[in-house]
């Protein structure tokens, strides 16, 4: 069953455009949901809920405005609404990694993905979502600010804080990711030397 069954002769132009927009948005929504929630199962449930709500409220979407931002707002609201219902979510980074349906890349790249997922999970949610919207999804600051319901300046400072925190966690160096680092220094120093 593909997208062909999703189109109808009787749909008006706006409905066809809306439907095409929903279809196109699934991958970006999934990427945002998986990175935000950290757990693929939870993320896919979020996307399911988002698509269902988007379709139910399609009459309230203003044609010509930013559908992507509208959908991300629905998903984000659903994420926090579920968090409130579940109480404080304990970030189970190890469990999430175990449950991860991995696209089997090269060994090195796989380790990179684990580190990034762990690091993202350790960020506070407001920093994580700002970073994902602006730096990962390439959303404009203004759109990200509207989605999160805060000022543009707040988004900017959250993105900067998130980037610094991520850099520290991933031990990202300015010059190269393969340069000398703390473990080498530790190996060189002799414990107990006075």
């Amino acid at each position, binding site marked *: *069953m593909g997208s062909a*069954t*999703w189109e*109808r002769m*009787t749909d*008006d132009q706006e*409905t066809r455009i809306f*439907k095409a927009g*929903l*279809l196109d948005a699934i*991958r*970006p929504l*999934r*990427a945002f949901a998986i990175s935000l929630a950290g757990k693929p199962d939870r993320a*896919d449930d979020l*996307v*399911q809920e988002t*698509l*269902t*709500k988007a*379709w*139910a*409220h*399609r*009459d*309230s979407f203003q044609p010509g405005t930013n559908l992507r931002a509208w959908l991300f707002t*629905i998903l984000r609201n659903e994420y926090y609404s579920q968090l409130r219902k579940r109480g404080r979510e304990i970030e189970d980074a190890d469990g999430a990694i175990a449950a991860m349906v991995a*696209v089997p*890349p090269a060994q090195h*790249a796989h380790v*990179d*993905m684990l580190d*990034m*997922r762990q690091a993202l999970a350790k960020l506070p949610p407001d920093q994580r979502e700002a*970073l*994902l919207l602006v*730096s*990962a*999804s390439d959303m404009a600051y203004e759109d990200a600010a509207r989605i999160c319901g805060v000022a543009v300046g707040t988004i900017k400072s959250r993105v*900067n804080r998130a*980037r*610094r925190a*991520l*850099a*520290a966690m*991933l*031990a*990202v*160096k*300015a010059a190269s*990711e393969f340069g000398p*680092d*703390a473990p080498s*220094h*530790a190996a060189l*120093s*002799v*414990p107990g*030397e*006075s």
Partner: protein
Amino acid sequence: MTKAPTHPARHTPKNSDAVGAAVTARLKAYYDDIARQAVPDRFLNLLAQLDAASDPDGKPPGGGGKPSA
């Protein structure tokens, strides 16, 4: 005297842009990997079901047009 090891990620102002760019590049690589995954059938099926559940004239059974909460 024991020399303390240097911190792995010392962010001096002149380095911060390069560090930020490196972090963003890694984040984008991670994110794009996920975004490239095929769309699960469940979502294609869902869209088809939602569409079919609407009335032939395109209006949902419960009445649409209400603003999102």
